[in-house]
């Protein structure tokens, strides 16, 4: 048949029947219910005494006909009292509902006379056996609880409903921290469950002064989160400013903590980020004990630490667990690697193109002769190799693991070697680019490595345009811009030079000398240890 259709189409020129293409049409009617435009009386809609009316409201709100994972289970209690449960299938622990809610509700009340009515106190305190149950008189509170994995319980004759927290959805177990590895020290990392994360921090600090204040972000998504701080240490105005900024976020759906960090930052478009994100609970515990504030959100395995300064962002998690000498050497190597990864390509271009008299003569002959056969100018060559390197790096992230690492090696070595043999680039450029790349892998913070990549590009451009003069200008402008920025009230480059704490910020101090909290945090308790931390040394 189709053959004939084809013949008809081409010989008799019959137009092909076109199937209708799908086009998105604009919605004509306003939605029935918009959570953002809730009127106050709708918001505070009270629960009815009659269970049928409640059920009608619930079915309408949850769109019960279409929503397949809403479950409404009717129960008849002793005394012919009707009640029903509402919950989402898959978000709740079925066993707990069975054992802790349905069984007691159906079987337990053997003390009541027949036909007696129940009141909320009885139902809650003697009948529902679950450990986290709350009662409410407005629909919205119950529905919010149900949306986050709770089980709503409506009993006939009561104008109060109950919500039991039985959340249990499939989640990751605690694993090793993949992006902040350290050889010594605890190896746990955060997971996506909010209570699990705050528990991991609390089990390290073990003090009742550790406050976890609840916040909710997003008008529709209402993502719960916590603000953690030590009440007798942290500065009160800092905590209030953080809460003020979070409450000022007005957006429908805020899903992850990275979005929150972009929304509360003062300079979101600057090259350097001003908030530290970590996935290790020991780092969060250490920061909170210094007087900082930690922020966690449900569904994100990272915590934010506020406020930070520029030096903190270069610290790695392992600095606290190594001996003083080793930690300082590690930090020095990291700083040198940072300097190389940012400045080396720019300086190389500036020196070979503008200030060739600076190089030793023999090195200059080597560079000059190795560049004889290369058709491109230095800038183009460098940018070409740099871009290839960045492509390899970006591709390596998306490859599955075994292929990813091999691709890096293959790409680097063979591509570079082949390019040199084909006389497209000179060998010295390969060295420069690989040193730069290795240096950028040595930074401790992922966000900071992006900063350095952008800075490297800026220095390449200014170095190629103006030589040393341009690089000096670039350094000056960058330094001035970060010196004038603040991170939650403290200048980004504090502690200022002249402060004794500066060398603590740049180098790792011995642990027995860290007896004061940082001054710029203006904590309530500046001291955190005695002057002599090792009392055993004072004599037997």
């Amino acid at each position: 048949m189709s053959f004939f259709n084809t013949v008809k189409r081409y010989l008799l020129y019959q137009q092909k029947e076109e199937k209708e293409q799908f086009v998105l049409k604009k919605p004509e009617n306003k939605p029935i219910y918009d959570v953002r435009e809730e009127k106050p009386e709708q918001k505070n809609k009270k629960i009815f005494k009659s269970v049928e009316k409640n059920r009608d409201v619930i079915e309408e709100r949850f769109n019960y006909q279409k929503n397949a994972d809403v479950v409404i289970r009717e129960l008849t209690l002793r005394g012919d009292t009707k009640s029903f449960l509402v919950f989402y299938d898959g978000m709740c622990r079925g066993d707990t509902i069975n054992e802790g809610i349905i069984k007691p509700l159906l079987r337990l009340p053997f003390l009541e006379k027949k036909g007696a009515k129940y009141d909320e106190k009885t139902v809650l305190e003697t009948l529902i056996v679950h450990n986290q149950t709350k009662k409410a008189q407005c629909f919205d509170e119950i529905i919010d609880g149900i949306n986050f994995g709770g089980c709503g319980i409506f009993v006939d004759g009561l104008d109060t409903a109950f919500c039991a927290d039985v959340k249990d959805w499939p989640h990751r177990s605690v694993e090793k921290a993949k992006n902040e590895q350290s050889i010594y020290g605890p190896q746990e990392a955060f997971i996506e469950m909010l209570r699990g994360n705050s528990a991991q921090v609390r089990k390290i600090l073990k003090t009742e002064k550790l406050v976890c204040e609840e916040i909710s972000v997003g008008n529709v998504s209402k993502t719960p989160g916590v603000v953690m701080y030590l009440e007798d240490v942290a500065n009160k105005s800092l905590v209030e400013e953080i809460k003020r900024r979070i409450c000022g976020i007005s957006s429908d759906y805020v899903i992850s903590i990275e979005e929150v960090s972009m929304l509360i930052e003062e300079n979101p478009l600057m090259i350097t980020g001003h908030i530290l994100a970590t996935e290790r609970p020991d780092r969060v515990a250490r920061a909170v004990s210094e007087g900082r504030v930690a922020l966690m959100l449900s569904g994100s395995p990272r915590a934010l630490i506020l406020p930070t300064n520029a030096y903190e962002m270069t610290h790695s998690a392992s600095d606290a667990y190594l001996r003083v000498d080793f930690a300082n050497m590690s930090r020095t190597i990291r700083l040198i690697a940072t300097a190389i990864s940012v400045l080396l390509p720019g300086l190389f271009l500036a020196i070979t193109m503008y200030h060739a008299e600076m190089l030793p003569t023999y090195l200059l002959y080597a560079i000059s002769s190795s560049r004889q056969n290369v058709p491109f100018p230095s800038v183009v060559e460098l940018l070409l190799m740099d871009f290839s390197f960045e492509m390899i790096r970006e591709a390596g992230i998306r490859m599955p693991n075994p292929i990813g690492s091999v691709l890096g090696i293959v790409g680097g070595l063979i591509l570079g070697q082949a390019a040199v043999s084909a006389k497209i680039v000179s060998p010295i450029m390969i060295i420069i680019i690989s040193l730069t790349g290795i240096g950028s892998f040595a930074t401790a913070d992922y966000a900071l490595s992006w900063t350095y990549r952008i800075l490297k590009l800026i220095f390449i451009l200014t170095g190629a345009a103006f030589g040393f003069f341009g690089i000096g200008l670039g350094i000056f402008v960058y330094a001035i811009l970060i010196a004038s920025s603040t991170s939650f009230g403290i200048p980004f480059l504090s502690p200022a030079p002249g402060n004794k704490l500066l060398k603590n910020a740049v180098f790792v101090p011995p642990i027995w000398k860290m007896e004061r909290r940082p001054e710029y945090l203006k904590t309530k308790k500046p001291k955190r240890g005695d002057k002599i931390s090792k009392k055993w040394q004072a004599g037997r």
Partner: protein
Amino acid sequence: MAGGQINVSRETIGGKMTKNETITEREMTLLIANLLSVKAIFAFPREIFASSANAAWIEVIYMSLLAWAMLELSFLTYKISGKKSIIDLAEKIGKKPFKIAVALLVTAVLAVNFITEVRMFSESVKIILLPKTDIEYIMILLAVTICLGQKSGLSAAATINAIFFPICLVFLGFIVIFLSKTYNMNNLFPILGNGTGSILKGGIKNISCFSDVLAVNLLLPHIQDISIPKKSGRKALLIASLTMLFICLSYALCYPYPWSKEFLLPVYQLSTRIRAGEYFQRFEAFFEFVWEISQLLYSTIYIFLISETLAKAFSLSDRTAICYGVIAAVALISIEPSSVVTVLAVSKIADMATAHLAYLLPIVIPVLYIIKRKKAQNS
């Protein structure tokens, strides 16, 4: 807090930077030391050597003692005048016209320094680093960078200065140490150079070397405590005169007299002679690069001082708009002379005319203020 009402408070909670920027003692010390030493680094040794031959280091000591004496005289008035700069005091003495007159005098003193410095810095960059680039391009870059710098405020510039300036001093120390092989003690003799008379006369002629002590007075509204400027001023003068002394000493030890007054950029010449082994020998471009940053900081602070003075004079609330005008005017004026020789000659005359004002104004105006207050108290 859950999605509730937002109380946007107009008061600042938890730290917004206040408009009146304050700087700490150490920052002020290093800031003023920077202002005073940049001249030592660029062109000044030539003038000092011209007047007193190889006794230049004696002249430096003499000049710093003079400058210190003038500084102490101006400190005596701080008890009564308090944390006010001479512009504020001028307003109290003679209302607006007097204030504008004093502000214009101060601007003239600062502008003479600034214009010379901008032109000489661009010239030195052109001679050493970028011989073929037009000087207008270098000046545009300098101007744009200074604008960006002053936008960030005084505290930022002071912090960056406190980080970078010690590095510059360390580099200077390297030069002095590494050159020790080429020193020749005989170049320091005859001890008195051209004679004591010429040292004394030359000291007074060249006193504009340390004329930036005016900045101690202009920065008074930005400090927290009245005892800070005294300590900072003394320490800064000490650092600057030691820098100048070491540079003049090394220069005198390396180069014999008639040639030491010939070189246009003395410290650059010193840095070309460094040699420690076969590979460690070509350092001057690095050195210029470290200095460039200190020079940019100098320009940023100067722009800040000039624009703040003018803003106070004409009672403007915001000083950023004036900055762009000042930078444009300075760039156009400094491009005017077509050759370096004209720049040097004109700047020498202008320096001699305005340097004495820089020392006398911080003494005369507070004294007038004290007299006026005593008269007002008596009557």
